[in-house]
């Protein structure tokens, strides 16, 4: 690769690349992010390659291997361009048929996506309910680029935003654009990004400044940052270069958790390519602006995502938060002024520069512009990564995109914001999702986790689950965070076992408020959310556990009993599955569980095909 020494050289390269883009022949896109690979994308790639090479189809069809598209459940999936045909859950044996159909401009009808609600086959990705209401300005780019090919990114307008700001030659213009875009940090707190950059640009102490991409993503079940890093690493790199230019920083750091090997690999390749082409290093594209980025791998503690802990970790110390002020802006890594932004925040930057801040601000609502990626999981039909404009209601996300409840169950709440987020009950589902409205109902945006809960979810158990996570992940420095989470967990555990008391609910609430008030960093300050928000909306479930020793959702093991209802067909499966011989029954006679023998392992419930095993 030739090092580009000027903006003209870049434009020439881009023109040449665009000329050679083959739009006449169809392209088969294979999603091979971590999740795609886990469900067998590599075999699909192999099958496709061998078909294309074996039949000498190289100039009849293109193959593009990309990062994540977000519809996890349907992995591995194929997307055909330009027809936009979507094939879910593809098996290696189907690949041949699909490729042949593509060549003949046909569709393999019975491999198309089948809508679980209507049962209809749907051809185009855009028409599938899961995708229909999304606004995929960030995630959507993943399907266009092969993450390890920088030329692919450049063909898709990549590094044009960088080129644009270098042509303008005015860092304050960049800051202005980001400010007018009203972009708020996607890492959780929603701090206005442009404002942060302006502060950094004003910092004079010392010759070097740092900007950091926070890719620690420690929330269990959240992977939006991973999918952007894996699928479009150059967008992060371009965003950071632009940030460096705007704020006068010279050093970039990507702090990424070690558990993301594919993302790290793609980042390393992308950084090398960017350096080779002259987007990083001394005198970028012949300008007098120099900037480079290095990768620092995180130690894997959740709390290392907190910015002051992250900085200490980068310095090689134990990742433990410290008092702010001084804020990173004044005293950051090695005492140098530092700006930390989340992966998704960085990914929005090239888009903002490209569209212009004012145009970008038109998406979303006032004060909450742009889109947000959520990882939508739990008790709904469609799960995966969804990107929606800020201000979309929970109803739309849960029912239109998520497809509503599974089976006969009733959705009762969503939990947003990761382990220290809160629950929003179903009667508040017309709430538009943004930073401020979530805070108002006692939850947080967090990094974008969204778990849908139905009447088979016990709220006490849920709070206990998150508190268990937090008590282990608290750094342990603040007495009230460390002991407070332990004590809250202890009380929740008592209640879920039926040995709690009503006084303990009051104590729990009192403690939760104290922990919120007396801790140093965001982890402790939000650690009470799971307790406070479930108590706020589902107090009756707590009381039920205590007064009637009953778990209404049938989850808390100590309080439930397994029994077999009249749906039983006497098939005998459960009897075979039971490790304790607790089930008796003859042919054609409804089976019975001997509760004195039953150890509540749940095996019978999971094998029964007739929903005949229930808990009460």
């Amino acid at each position, binding site marked *: 690769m030739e090092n580009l020494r000027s903006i003209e050289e870049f434009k020439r390269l881009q023109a040449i690349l665009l000329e050679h883009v083959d739009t006449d022949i169809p392209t088969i896109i294979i999603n091979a992010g971590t999740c795609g690979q886990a469900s067998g994308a590599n075999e699909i790639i192999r099958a496709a390659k061998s078909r294309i090479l074996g039949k000498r189809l190289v100039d009849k069809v293109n193959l593009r291997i990309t990062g994540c598209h977000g519809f996890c459940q349907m992995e591995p999936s194929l997307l055909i361009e330009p027809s936009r045909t979507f094939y879910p859950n593809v098996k290696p044996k189907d690949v041949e048929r699909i490729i042949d159909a593509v060549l003949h401009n046909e569709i393999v009808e019975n491999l198309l996506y089948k809508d679980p609600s209507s049962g209809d086959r749907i051809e185009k990705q855009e028409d599938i309910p899961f995708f229909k209401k999304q606004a995929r300005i960030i995630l959507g780019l993943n399907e266009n680029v092969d993450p390890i090919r920088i030329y692919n990114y450049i063909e898709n307008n990549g590094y044009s935003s960088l080129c644009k700001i270098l042509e303008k030659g005015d860092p304050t213009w960049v800051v202005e654009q980001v400010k007018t875009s009203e972009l708020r940090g996607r890492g959780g707190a929603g701090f206005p990004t442009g404002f942060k950059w302006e502060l950094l640009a004003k910092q004079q102490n010392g010759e070097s400044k740092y900007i950091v991409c926070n890719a620690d993503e420690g929330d269990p079940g959240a992977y939006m940052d991973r999918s952007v890093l894996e699928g479009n690493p150059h967008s992060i790199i371009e965003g950071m270069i632009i940030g460096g230019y705007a704020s006068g920083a010279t050093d970039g750091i990507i702090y990424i958790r070690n558990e993301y090997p594919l993302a790290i690999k793609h980042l390393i390749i992308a950084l090398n390519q960017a350096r080779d082409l002259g987007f990083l290093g001394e005198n970028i594209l012949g300008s007098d602006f120099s900037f480079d980025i290095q990768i620092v791998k995180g130690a894997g*503690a959740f*709390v290392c995502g907190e910015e002051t802990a992250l900085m200490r970790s980068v310095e090689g110390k*134990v990742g433990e938060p*410290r*008092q702010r*002020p*001084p804020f990173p802006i004044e005293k950051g890594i090695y005492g140098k002024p530092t700006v930390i932004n989340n992966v998704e925040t960085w990914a929005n930057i090239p888009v903002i520069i490209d569209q212009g801040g004012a145009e970008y601000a038109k998406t979303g609502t006032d004060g909450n512009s742009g889109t947000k990626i959520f990882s939508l999981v739990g008790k709904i039909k469609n799960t995966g990564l969804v990107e929606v404009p800020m201000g979309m209601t929970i109803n739309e996300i849960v029912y239109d995109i998520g497809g509503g409840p599974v089976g006969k169950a009733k959705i009762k709440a969503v939990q947003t914001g990761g382990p220290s987020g809160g629950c929003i009950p179903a009667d508040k589902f017309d709430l538009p999702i943004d930073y401020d409205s979530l805070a108002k109902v006692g939850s947080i945006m967090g990094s974008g986790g969204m778990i849908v809960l139905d009447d088979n979810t016990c709220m006490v158990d849920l709070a206990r689950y998150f508190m268990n996570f937090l*008590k*282990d*992940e*608290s*750094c*342990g*420095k*603040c*007495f*009230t965070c*460390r*002991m*407070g*989470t*332990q*004590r809250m967990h*202890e009380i929740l555990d008592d209640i879920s076992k039926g040995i709690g008391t009503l*006084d303990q609910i009051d*104590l729990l609430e*009192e*403690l939760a408020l*104290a922990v919120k*008030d*007396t*801790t*140093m960093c965001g982890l402790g300050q939000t650690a009470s959310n799971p307790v406070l928000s479930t108590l706020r909306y589902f107090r009756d479930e707590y009381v039920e556990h205590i007064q009637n020793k009953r778990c209404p959702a049938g989850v808390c093991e100590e309080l439930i009993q397994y029994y077999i209802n009249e749906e039983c067909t006497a098939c005998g499966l459960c009897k075979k599955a039971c490790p304790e011989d607790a089930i008796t029954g003859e042919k054609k006679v409804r089976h019975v569980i001997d509760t004195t023998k039953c150890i509540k392992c749940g095996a019978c419930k999971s094998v029964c095909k007739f929903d005949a095993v229930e808990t009460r």
Partner: protein
Amino acid sequence: MITLTINGLDVQVEEGTTLLEAARHLGFPIPTLCHMDGLTPYGACRLCVVEIGEGPGAKMVSSCTFPVQEGLKVRTASERVLKARRMIIELMLSVCPQSKTIQDLASKFGVRQQRFRQEFKDCILCGLCVRMCEEQMMAKAIGFRGRGESRSIGTPFDIETDVCRRCGGCMFVCPVCELRCTYNEPEKAICGGCANLVPPCVEKDQFDDMMCYMEPCVACEITKD
């Protein structure tokens, strides 16, 4: 100089002063546990919390670590502060009920109940010993390990370490294990209980010999086998 208001009184202090120092300068008492003059503020015990700001933006911070800011309004004994402080002390009682320091705090602030499950630990992880050892004794013999529930204090790999100067500084500052360390001088002991017992720290099952990295122990000269 920075001007701020503490409990309605204006005060001028130098930049870089902490809220705790400024409040004490005015004579407002703030209880502390993990703070000690001469050691870097750490902010672990949270006992020194005060309320800053006004209206819905008011929040609580640890005064021993929070630097003064121009125009800041500070309350050192608001209802919110007192409530939180009592809860912190109650929590402390639930962990280390045997500590004289914590008992005194409880009685001073009127904490008369302990509603959590009772534990008997011999450390609240205030970090005084660690800072004492590192900053005053220049030894760095002990430190924190682990996080969350499994956080603890000790020497690397829990074995006796050569860097320990056997100065006893760590024991001297510890707010929790003081009772044990008066064992050798019954007349100075708080309750004298340990004089009649096998020294608690040698009964390995109940007490880890957390404070006795030294051998023989500087205070009671018991040699461990």
